[in-house]
């Protein structure tokens, strides 16, 4: 490939790499690299969820770790959305709340053992923004935890200890590795690290890369690649 066209920033690849791991390399016709990036990053992120459960992706309780996980892209935000809206809920005390402001101050939490999640309707009454002397009453659907009945259980079990730490670490490192892949997909100009290869030229042995000008593909009359010794390419 042409070195000049290689060194140009690729905006589309950069954006697609941020959308889904490996996609930036795939659209740059680097299918092998794209699939390997996808395997590595998704393996780390989904491996973290496999180890620690969905609780390792939590923008509310583990915000600092979530910043790293968010680098995986929309997948991390989708998992967090599902976690916040389908697994976490309010304490049972939320049923007695009569004000939306009071509800907003409450935080959702994960389920304790022996609890079940249920969506209940509550009625809240708050001063009207236009006329504070008048109250506006409305109904809200609120997820709460309650004591589980027979055959019921919490929507998920919360991980703790080393399992939670390792799961969170997996998912966060997945995001950080994806950042490297995003940069590589968008700014491919920098040279890859190459282990110096020895090439035998006649009776001399020299570094193959030492005499090749920058940008020259590593092909030619290389005895290690089937060329004739003693004949320079």
């Amino acid at each position: 490939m042409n070195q000049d066209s290689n060194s140009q920033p690729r905006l589309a690849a950069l954006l697609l790499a941020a959308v889904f791991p490996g996609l930036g390399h795939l659209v740059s016709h680097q299918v092998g690299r794209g699939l390997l990036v996808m395997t590595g990053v998704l393996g780390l992120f989904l491996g973290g969820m496999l180890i620690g459960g969905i609780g390792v992706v939590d923008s509310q309780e583990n915000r600092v770790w979530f910043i790293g996980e968010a680098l995986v892209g929309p997948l991390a935000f989708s998992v967090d959305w599902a976690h916040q809206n389908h697994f976490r809920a309010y304490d049972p005390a939320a049923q007695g709340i009569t004000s939306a402001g009071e509800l907003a101050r409450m935080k959702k939490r994960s389920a304790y053992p022996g609890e079940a999640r249920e969506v209940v309707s509550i009625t809240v009454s708050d001063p009207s923004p236009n006329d504070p002397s008048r109250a506006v009453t409305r109904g809200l659907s609120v997820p709460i935890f309650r004591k589980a009945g027979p055959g019921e259980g919490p929507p998920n079990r919360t991980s703790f200890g080393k399992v939670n730490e390792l799961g969170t670490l997996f998912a966060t490192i997945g995001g950080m590795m994806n950042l490297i892949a995003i940069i590589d997909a968008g700014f491919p100009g920098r040279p890859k690290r190459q282990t110096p290869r020895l090439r035998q030229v006649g009776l001399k042995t020299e570094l193959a890369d030492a005499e090749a000008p920058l940008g020259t593909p590593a092909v030619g009359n290389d005895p290690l690649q089937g060329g004739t010794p003693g004949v320079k390419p």
Partner: protein
Amino acid sequence: MSALWAVVAYVPFIDPLDAHHWWYLLLVPMAALIAVSYKAVRVETLRDFPKEAAIMTVQIVLGIVLIGVASFLFVEEVLPMIAR
């Protein structure tokens, strides 16, 4: 039966693995996946990829083991010597 199922069922990606006794073994796949994603963008040709990824996996695992041993010696040997 359903109540028992609700308690013991493991749903992948939702519930945590019961890995409290062998969690340290999971450092090996973690190191391997880090090496795969890093070397995928780092090697010049993918022909070198398997070897480079395997070497990096071993390096990461050995590095973690060495840091663990060093931390153990520091906490168990050095700190008591300082405290004496």
